């Protein structure tokens, strides 16, 4: 961690200091271990893509794509716009790989690191 912090917004809306906002922040934090695990799975899939003989049918890559979709929904719904943008870029690069393009592993690694930071709430 680099100390970067994220202030979560009220679910799908503008940030407020409401009780609902506090509860939602608690929920986000409570689920952080699971969210971190999903990001870790995505990062592992990126490393697989960089390995010789990488296949997009690899179950780890398929699972990572599914978890990226969940991360997209979660970051969008909880108003983590920066994290959502990072997820969208990873999804775009994954789609390109599925479409036959070589994996931009260096960029994907950067994005995974960025995502790790963006999901943290203190």
């Amino acid at each position, binding site marked *: 961690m680099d100390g970067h912090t994220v202030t979560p917004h*009220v*679910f*799908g*809306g*503008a940030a407020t200091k409401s009780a*609902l906002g506090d*509860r*939602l922040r608690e*929920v*986000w934090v*409570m*689920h952080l*271990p*699971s*969210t971190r695990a999903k990001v870790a799975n995505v990062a592992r899939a990126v490393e697989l893509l960089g390995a010789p003989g990488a296949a997009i049918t690899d179950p780890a890559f398929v699972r990572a794509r*599914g978890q990226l*979709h*969940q991360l*997209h*929904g*979660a970051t*969008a*719904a*909880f*108003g983590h716009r920066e994290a*959502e943008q990072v997820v969208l870029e990873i999804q775009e690069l994954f789609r390109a790989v599925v479409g036959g393009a070589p994996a931009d592993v260096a960029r994907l690694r950067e994005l995974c690191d960025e995502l790790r930071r963006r999901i943290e709430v203190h």
Partner: protein
Amino acid sequence: MSIAFDRHAAGPVPTESAPPIRRNGVAAAAVTCVVVDDHALLREGMRLGLEANGIEVLGEAGDGTEAMELVRRLRPAVVLLDMRLPGEDGAHVAQRITEEGLGVRTLIVSAYAEPAIVARALEHGSHGYLSKDAPIAMVAAAVRSIAGGKRFVDPGVAGRLLCEEGTLSEREVEVLEMMSRGMQNMTIAHELGISVETVKAHVSRVMGKLGGESRTEAVAIALRSGLIF
């Protein structure tokens, strides 16, 4: 996953499994719903947001099978469905719910906003479609609207759907613009040089495509979607 999991007994441990039925002191007359999403974080956030907006969340499910079981047992007014679910997708679950004739209506809440996916959900009988980044107040409004027998499509999504798929013909857009200026069918017919019956058919198709229950609502949706200015 099992709907027998008891969240209260197990304590606040995050899990991907769906928790049980819940009633949280929301007014008895509140609109009721069930939330279906394979992501526990999403279900939890959605439940909190809906309850804060006066919607009673009767239960949560993580997949279509659980959803069907809860719907049959609880008969909520509305089921909120993620599009991407394990096993069968939200559109298919919406279709099954409609086909069972339980009087339960459905709203897809999805991260997908691609027109083809939205169109598929609506074609399968879903009564509404919202993006996951929709403000929770809009989600609650959509649930109320759908529970009241109306349809509700995220304005941004509706705009993309109609523009990218070209499902509104040029003539229909013309009619829509005239409707937005408050013109009645006879006036529109005179202006366009077509029969009143033809105008009525255009108006009906426009309302159907936009999901509006009235001329005014259709115009409002079109304005919010940027289809007309």
